[in-house]
C-alpha cells in the first residue's frame, strides 16, 4: 500500500505540473496532427481505401512514437531543473515508484493525444476497420505503454549526457522495434481483417511484461549514477 501511495504521489505531481505548463501535450498534439494532415494530403486516402488500411497502422504508430519522444525528454527536464532529481536521490522513497509514477503520467498524456487523434485520423483516412474493432482497445493501451515505459527509462538514462535529445531516439528506436512491429501488425490486422491479431497482441504483451520488469529493476541504478 505504501508503494502505491508513493506512485500516486509522483503521478499527482506530474499531472499537476503538466496541467500548469501543458508542455508535453501541446507539443505532441501539434506534431501528430501535422503528420496526419500532411500525409493525408500527400495521397488521396479515399481513392485507395485498401492501401490506406494497409499502411494506416504504421502511420499511426510512427506518428505516436515520434510525438511521445518529444514529451519524454520534457518529463525528465522538470526533474533536472533546480536539481530536484538530487532530492529524489536522497529521499528514502523507492526509486522505482518515481519511475512508475512518471511512466503512468506519460502514458496518460500520450493516451489523451490518441483520444483526440483517433477521430481525426479516422475522418482524414476514411477508415472503416474490417476486423474486430474492439481489439484496438487492447492494442492501443498495450502499444502506448510499450513506447512509454521504454521511453521514460531511456530518457532518464540519457539525462546526464550532453546531447540527450539526440541520444534518446538513437537508443529508443532500435529497442522498440519488436514492439513497433507487433503493434503495427496487430493494428493492420484489425483494420484490414485479413489475419488474426492475437499472435501480435501476445508478442506485444510479452514485450511489455519483460521491459516493464527490467526498467523497474534497473531504475535505482540509473537514478543513483553520478
Amino acid at each position: 500500500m505504501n508503494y502505491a501511495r508513493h506512485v500516486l504521489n509522483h503521478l499527482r505531481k506530474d499531472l499537476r505540473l503538466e496541467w500548469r505548463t501543458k508542455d508535453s501535450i501541446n507539443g505532441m498534439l501539434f506534431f501528430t496532427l501535422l503528420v496526419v494532415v500532411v500525409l493525408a494530403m500527400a495521397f488521396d486516402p479515399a481513392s485507395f481505401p485498401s492501401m490506406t488500411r494497409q499502411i494506416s497502422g504504421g502511420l499511426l504508430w510512427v506518428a505516436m512514437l515520434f510525438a511521445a519522444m518529444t514529451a519524454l525528454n520534457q518529463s525528465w527536464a522538470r526533474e533536472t531543473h533546480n536539481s530536484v532529481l538530487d532530492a529524489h536521490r536522497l529521499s528514502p522513497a523507492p526509486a522505482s515508484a518515481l519511475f512508475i509514477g512518471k511512466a503512468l503520467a506519460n502514458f496518460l498524456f500520450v493516451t489523451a493525444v490518441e483520444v483526440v487523434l483517433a477521430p481525426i485520423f479516422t475522418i482524414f483516412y476514411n477508415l472503416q476497420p474490417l476486423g474486430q474493432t474492439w481489439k484496438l482497445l487492447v492494442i492501443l493501451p498495450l502499444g502506448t505503454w510499450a513506447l512509454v515505459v521504454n521511453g521514460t527509462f531511456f530518457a532518464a538514462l540519457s539525462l546526464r549526457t550532453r546531447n540527450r535529445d539526440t541520444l534518446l531516439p538513437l537508443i529508443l528506436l532500435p529497442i522498440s522495434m519488436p514492439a513497433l512491429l507487433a503493434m503495427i501488425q496487430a493494428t493492420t490486422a484489425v483494420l484490414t481483417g485479413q489475419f488474426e491479431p492475437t499472435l501480435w497482441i501476445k508478442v506485444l504483451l510479452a514485450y511489455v511484461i519483460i521491459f516493464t520488469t527490467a526498467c523497474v529493476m534497473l531504475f535505482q541504478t540509473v537514478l543513483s549514477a553520478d
Partner: protein
Amino acid sequence: MTSWNDPPAAAAEPDQKLPAPAEAPVAASALPAVELKRVSRLYGSFAALREISLQLAAGSSVVMLGENGAGKSTLLKVIAGLQSPSYGETKVFGEEPRHQRGVVAYMSHATMLYDELTGMENLSYFAGLYEDGRKPLVSKRSWRSETAAQALTEVGLDPGNTRRVGEYSQGMRQRASLARVLLSEPDLLLLDEPFSNLDAGSAQSMISRLLGYVAEPSPNGLTRTLLLTTHQAELAGPLAQTTLTLSKGRLVSIVETSRMVRKAGGVEEMRTDR
C-alpha cells in the same frame, strides 16, 4: 596526515578528529557522523578534492570556509552520496552514503523545488517521500499537509501563499529550500551557502532555526549533526562549534571555535576559541 591503516588510537590525530559536544543529554551515535579516508574527487585532470581525511562526531556543528573553487560544494556532495569519490572512502554513520537515504539532507545552491508548484504543494509532495516509518495519528494526506505547513511556517513562509515557487524572491526560495530539508528530519544536515541570498534579518532567523534544530533529537533519538559552508563566517559564528577551512581541494585547518551545550529546551553556547 593521518594514516587510515593505523589502529584507531593512532589515527586519532587531534586536529583531524572532532569531538562530540561536551554535555549531551540526548544520545550521540557511537559511530562518527561523517568519516572520510583520503578522499579525492577528480573532474578530468582537475582535482576538486585532494586526499581529505576527516571524522565528524555525531552531534557536532561544523562550519566549512574556503574561497570559491576550494571544493566545499564537492565535499558536501560526496558526503551526501550525490557524487562518488574518485579515490578514498566515505562513510556516513558507518555506512556508504548511498545506503543512508533519508538520514542525510542536503540543501544546495539550487532550490530542489518545482518552480511551477506553490510552496505548500512542493512541501506536501516532499513530505510524501518521507512518510514511511512515521506514525501519523491522522490520515497520510493530512499528515503531509500538516508537516508541510509547519515546515513553511517555521521558516517564516505563509503556507496559504498561492504564488508558485518560480515567482518567489531569492530569499523566499532559500527559505522554502530550507523548509524542504528540515521536514525530512535528518540526522545529518548538509547546507551549501544557506545565507547567500538572505538579508541580515532573514539570515539571523535561519540561524536561530538551525540552532534550535540541532538542539532537538532526531526521530532516531540521536543528536543532530550540521555541516554548512559559507563565505559569511561572521554570520555562521553561533553555529560554528568547529570551523574547517578548505583551500584548493585540501583541508588546511580544523579549529574548535566553540562548544554548544545541548539542553532539551535550547542551546547554551560557550565560546572557547583557540
